[in-house]
């Protein structure tokens, strides 16, 4: 793996984002909308419910912020690939001495940078608008952030593979795929509230363990990370990352074999 090539590809995306302010708006706009909706709802419920209920409200804000970590990481990979398709630059990249692993790693880095920008903006706005200090969140949440980001990258690779396979007609999958799993991974409610048959599926996804673990950390009655959730999330992430890499690599091989890559890149 050549870090010079990865940094060159990352530089390209940084140029793209800094040259196109609308891309930055997209990074910030939806998270801010989410924050306002959940922030105002939280304030309203805090004023109109008893104090014991109030800490549950923290789960909503925590769930919203962590969900955004997953979504931004997935988008970092899928949208970075689509940027190359939209600008008809894909062939230039694929005929350059860039290994697939270098290309994908660059999109991971972009996913991470997108998260940094979004979380920074959300943190400032949450503090100013709702007196919610992100720094007051427990540091034990950091491993959950990391696991969620890695799962977002896996979903991003699977989204990209599907777009490669089905062409631009499948572009909407870049946005839709995270939302396919959102109802299942217990973002805003415990997995125990899902129907029994769905709980098995939910527990097979790393994100479920992360959101369950987050609630343990934020719950004053528990207040610490559950190592079993973290261990399960990390283990499942290894499996999902390997699976996503295999799906991406075999789809890329298939598009080369079928001659779809050039058609897709120049359409």
């Amino acid at each position, binding site marked *: 793996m050549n870090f*010079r*090539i990865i*940094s*060159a*590809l990352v*530089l*390209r995306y940084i*140029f*793209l984002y800094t*040259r*196109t302010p609308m891309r930055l708006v997209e990074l910030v706009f939806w998270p801010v909308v989410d924050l306002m909706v959940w922030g105002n709802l939280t304030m309203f419920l805090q004023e109109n419910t008893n104090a014991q209920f109030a800490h549950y409200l923290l789960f909503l804000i925590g769930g919203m912020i962590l969900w955004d970590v997953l979504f931004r990481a997935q988008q970092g990979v899928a949208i970075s690939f689509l*940027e*190359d398709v939209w*600008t*008809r*630059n894909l*062939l*230039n990249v*694929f*005929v*350059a*001495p*860039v*290994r697939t692993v270098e290309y994908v790693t660059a999109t991971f880095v972009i996913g991470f940078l997108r998260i940094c920008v979004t979380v920074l903006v959300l943190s400032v706005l949450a503090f100013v608008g709702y007196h919610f200090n992100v720094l007051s969140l427990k540091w034990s949440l950091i491993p959950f952030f990391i696991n969620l980001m890695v799962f977002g990258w896996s979903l991003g690779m699977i989204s990209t593979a599907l777009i490669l396979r089905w062409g631009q007609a499948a572009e909407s999958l870049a946005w839709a795929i995270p939302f396919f799993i959102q109802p299942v991974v217990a973002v805003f409610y415990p997995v125990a509230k899902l129907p029994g048959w769905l709980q098995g599926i939910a527990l097979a996804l790393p994100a479920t363990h992360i959101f369950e673990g987050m609630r343990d950390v934020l719950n004053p009655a528990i207040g610490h990370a559950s190592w079993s959730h973290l261990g399960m999330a990390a283990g499942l992430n290894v499996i999902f990352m390997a699976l996503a890499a295999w799906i991406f690599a075999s789809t890329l*091989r298939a598009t*080369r*074999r*079928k*001659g779809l*890559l*050039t058609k897709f*890149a*120049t359409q």
Partner: protein
Amino acid sequence: MSSPANPEIILEARDLSREFDGVVALDRFSFKLKRGEVLGLLGANGAGKTTSMNMLLGLTTPTSGSIQAFGRDFFKNRVELLRRMNFSSAYTSLPGNLLVWQNLLVFAKIYGVPDHKKKIAELLELFEISDLRKRVTGQLSAGESTRLNLCKALLNDPELLLLDEPTASLDPDIADKVRKTIRRVQSERQISILYTSHNMRDIEEVCDRVIFLHKGKVVTEGTTADIVAKSQQSSLEDVFIKIARSGDIEE
């Protein structure tokens, strides 16, 4: 047993075939490209030029056959060999929302170009587009965009260059400038070029040798003068039309 690699042969395709859903796009296509030679691939739409080019770039895998670049198996050493090659096509573009220098800087870094600022300045100067350095790429005209693509293609001082219709959609003045610049650079640096075009003037001015393809098969090959003489046509364009319509150069 394969013969020892000849350093003078930069690119060699052996019995390259490609089928798409049972339709033969290329049928046992073989050729050799020597160091410093410009080889033109000619043929009507669907003749197999783009399929060949895509396989030679590793974008499409052949159904059968092999490609050797610089004496090594291309598909087994693709990334390593691509460092010594480059490509430009009328059908690709660099990201339109980046500035010209930003696009060139990114590719200079990808190819590991030493002293990239100097190199970029030299190439912009060579193609007479230094004044566009700070322009948004998407706002360039077709001619300017083509010249920028060629700057990108020469960034790594390639030994092998694949050019897919580099003068398509250019006006005659710009096309002439582009042809002359390509030929000058090629001759100064002894670059081997595989060149496709529908513009016969391009082929006559730039190529040392041409291969005519029709429905995936080689119809004839040689210098443009030899082919015109052999076919008893009055010009290369007439040969092209003859082959496109009948699939042969003989009456």
